[in-house]
């Protein structure tokens, strides 16, 4: 067979190609269905009906992800690759969306926000994130990034009557488009340097010849764009303002799902391309994010702002896993980072679900003072929030503990002793501000009249799902870690040592890179 017919054949999408983007298709169809049905349903009932359709959509998305996982491979002229890595992140972002949709029902009703496009936007955002997770073509990644970003820009402004929400949306939009422009510029330079936007080809080109200045610049620009999306210092300034103004469930969504997708892209860019000259870049970003995030969080009195700074700090811990100086340690680093994204998603979505319930109409009750005495007035929610906060601190029995644990052991294996020390000291500092919320809830008597509303069924379901996930990752982390390790193998440009070997044998070649 000659080359030409093969290429032609490739250009025509096959049925497998569609299976490999099945989750995206399913989610998009459900999103459109929500939009179309919106004017048809009674406004009173629209909340429940449209939310239920969206939730069914995410469940269908999860099932189709499972179906897609059965036929791994390339699709659409090598722009999409389905392997266990992309399946992992597809599954993660869709699951996050499902839980967030569940926790939104009650919130939207209480805030008197018309549902309409809200649920559709979440679904469309997830489509973009799924594309980011499966694409191996930088331009396609960019399109995914835009789809997901634009949805979240709008979602951030959904409390239309509040000035802070519009401010949040506008800030996010202006700064975010600036950052995506950086990313796009990086992609363009990369194309100039290597003649391709396909990650696999770029990887081969870069390893074949020593990379020039253009490649370094391209990497730096792409890193700026992605650093903004994951809220890593020094590109984190937008986070607290945006998180403070945006609706609480949306914050739960955008602090986890788009971040997970951006981390997936970052993992591909850093490890598959084996980006040159990245070490100090990532080292600094990790150290800065951890330190700035934690220290700024210490003095916050608004719980949403506090959790915003905490999310910066967590992006820092995650970046520690990226700062692997050599290829052998990469698999441990990648799997640690993947585990961390999953654990962080579980606990943060849960924490924001509680915050959105406590916030009440008009998000009036979001300061530490409002949380005083909640341990007595609504013990179940307070206990749930405490559990999520303990997980964010990194106390054993929670997913947050193993997440930190894997990241720091990966760093120590790679002999990043200073970075690990900065990390562990930071996690001790971090304990203080999470503790402030727990102290307010349990050890102080309420000074204000804070209304306590009963928990709706959907919120209860959302909370129990996140609780279970956090607990599962904290007690039986094995399975998820194995999947992550398996995916990490897929991600590496050439398969290195088998994972059991890498994970269990002591580091044989310590690299004195610090």
């Amino acid at each position, binding site marked *: 067979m000659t080359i030409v017919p093969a290429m032609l054949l490739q250009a025509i999408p096959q049925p497998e190609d569609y299976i490999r983007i099945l989750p995206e298709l399913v989610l998009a169809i459900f999103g459109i269905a929500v939009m179309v049905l919106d004017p048809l349903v009674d406004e009173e009932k629209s909340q429940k009906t449209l939310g239920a359709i969206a939730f069914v959509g995410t469940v269908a998305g999860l099932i189709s992800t499972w179906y897609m996982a059965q036929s791994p491979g390339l699709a659409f002229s090598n722009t999409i690759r389905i392997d266990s890595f992309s399946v992992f992140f597809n599954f993660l972002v869709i699951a996050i969306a499902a839980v967030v949709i569940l926790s939104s029902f009650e919130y939207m009703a209480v805030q008197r926000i018309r549902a309409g496009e809200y649920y559709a936007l979440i679904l469309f955002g997830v489509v973009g994130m799924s594309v980011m997770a499966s694409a191996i073509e930088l331009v396609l990644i960019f399109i995914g990034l835009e789809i997901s970003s634009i949805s979240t820009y709008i979602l951030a402004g959904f409390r239309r009557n509040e000035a802070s929400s519009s401010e949040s949306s506008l800030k996010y939009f202006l700064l975010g488009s600036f950052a995506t422009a950086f990313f796009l510029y990086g992609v363009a330079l990369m194309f100039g340097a290597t003649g391709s936007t396909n990650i696999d080809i770029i990887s081969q080109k870069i390893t074949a010849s020593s990379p020039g200045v253009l490649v370094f610049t391209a990497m730096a620009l792409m890193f700026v764009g992605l650093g903004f999306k994951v809220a890593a210092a020094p590109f984190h300034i937008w986070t607290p303002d945006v998180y403070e103004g945006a609706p609480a469930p949306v914050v739960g969504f955008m602090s986890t799902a788009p971040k997970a997708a951006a981390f997936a892209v970052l993992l591909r860019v850093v490890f598959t391309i084996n980006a040159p000259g990245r070490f100090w870049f990532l080292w600094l970003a990790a150290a800065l994010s951890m330190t700035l995030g934690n220290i700024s969080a210490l003095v916050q009195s608004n719980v949403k702002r506090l959790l915003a700074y905490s999310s910066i700090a967590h992006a820092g811990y995650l970046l520690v896993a990226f700062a692997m100086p050599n290829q052998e340690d990469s698999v441990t680093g990648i799997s640690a980072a993947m585990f961390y994204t999953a654990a962080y998603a579980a606990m943060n979505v849960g924490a924001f679900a509680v915050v959105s319930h406590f916030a009440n109409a008009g998000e009036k009750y979001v300061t530490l003072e409002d949380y005083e005495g909640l*341990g007595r007035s609504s013990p179940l929610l307070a206990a749930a929030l405490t559990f999520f906060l303990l997980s964010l601190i990194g106390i*054993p029995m929670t997913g947050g503990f193993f997440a930190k644990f894997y990241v720091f052991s990966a760093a120590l294996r790679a002999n990043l002793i200073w970075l690990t020390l900065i990390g562990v000291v930071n*996690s*001790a500092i971090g304990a*203080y501000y999470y503790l402030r919320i727990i102290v307010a809830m349990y*050890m102080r008597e309420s000074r204000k009249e804070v209304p306590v509303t009963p928990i709706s069924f959907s919120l209860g379901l959302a909370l129990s799902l996140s609780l279970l996930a956090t607990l599962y990752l904290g007690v039986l982390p*094995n399975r998820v870690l*194995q999947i992550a390790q398996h995916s990490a193998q897929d991600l590496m440009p050439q398969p290195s040592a088998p994972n059991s070997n890498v994970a269990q044998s*002591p580091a044989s070649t310590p690299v004195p890179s610090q």
Partner: protein
Amino acid sequence: MNDALGPYIVSLITFVPLAGAVLLTFLPRRDRDIRVVAFLFSLATFCLSLHLPVHFHRGLPGFQFEIDKPWITSPNIHYHMAIDGISMWLVVLTTFLTPLCVLISWKSVHDRVKEFFILLLILETALIGVFTSLDLFLFYFFWEATLIPMALLIGVFGHERKVYAAVKFFMYTMIASVFMLAAILWLYAHTGSFDFVVIRDQIAKGAVASFPAAAQWLFLGFFLAFAVKVPLFPFHTWLPDAHVEAPTAGSVLLAGVLLKMGTYGMLRFNLGLFPEQARRNAPWIMTLALIGIIYGALVAMVQPNMKKLIAYSSVSHLGFVVLGIFSFTQSGLNGAMFVMLAHGISTGGLFMLAGILHERRHTYEISEFGGLASPMPVYAASYLFIVLASVGLPLLNGFVGEFLVLNGAFQAKPIYGILGATGVIWSACYLLWMFQRVFYGKVTNPVNNGMADMLGFEKAAVWPCAAAALVMGVAPILWLAAIDPAVHDALAPLAQTMSKVVMQ
């Protein structure tokens, strides 16, 4: 294995209190039922834990009742639990004190009773887990797990400045223990195992890459976490706050068991994993211990608050334990172990007695009392008994341990023994002086005339401590028979490094 229950008994003892806590969460809020259930579960745990000393083979070295099952394959974490002569008695001490804590809290806790006993039982599980786990990961897991119930006990059920004390306690121990976590992670990264025995053997064989360069830092990482917990002299400032604000049961477990986690950790990990570094660092550690003994005693002497006085006496007594451990002599370590147990019992008793007074007068100020011996004779007699045990009167438990420690310290360096011995005198001074001010003379404050003597459940809580103090003082061999071989084991690697030094 010792018998059919063999490998499972340790897990059973560890998790029975947790099962009790889970059961309590589902019980309706009828305070009486909750107290009874909590008491039954803690008593059942104590009875189960007696299985250990009964079936323990005292002649055999090493760990017994061992269970080693893989828990997480990657990283290589095992559910590895076992006890030896050292940890066995600390487990029994924990299970012994918890039912007494339930009794002493019977009436004094009336708000959020359910939460209180749930936290108490969770704390018991975590404490037992610390002493029984041999996998470093599992150990850290339980170590951190003790933190939350204890901080909540202080912060929710404590007195006026409870929030400050709880946060201080939490932050102090948390910050110190992350350094231990870093050291544990380093060891895992370079040995591929969390198992205490495996790591110990690998280090002893010199099979760990780049260990000599890191050893001192690793030693310090572990040591800092333990020193804060003990608390050793400059790290002790959280202790008085935590004690004064904690509810009685919290204080009893804090002084009785939590502080022992630190000394146990030094004995097991600092000596077991890093014998050479332990030897090298011993001089300054022993100096800090001596400062702790004398400083703690002097500060205790001038405290106007009874609970603070007992808290500082703990600083002083725990100084003896550290002194004994770092003397590296058989007698010093035996003594250190014995002081740990004796201090747990007698200080636990003292805190219960102080709690009884607080229950009646809502104050710990010594100056508020005086002449209590006439309205409360039984109470005064019990108090005197426990005070004498704590002071170290021969035939009571305090004496044996302190004698052995001083003997060991003297062998290490006479000056350590001499300075340490003054601590015994100081402790007699502050405790007896406090006793005199509270109980003798005329009743100065008329309110005190109307105070009821000890109630039935209070007697049930305090007298077992007194009985244990007496038995430990008269027949220390019952305890030392198991401790001695274990200590001998613990000292073996030190003896090797010693001979290495001599050969060079």
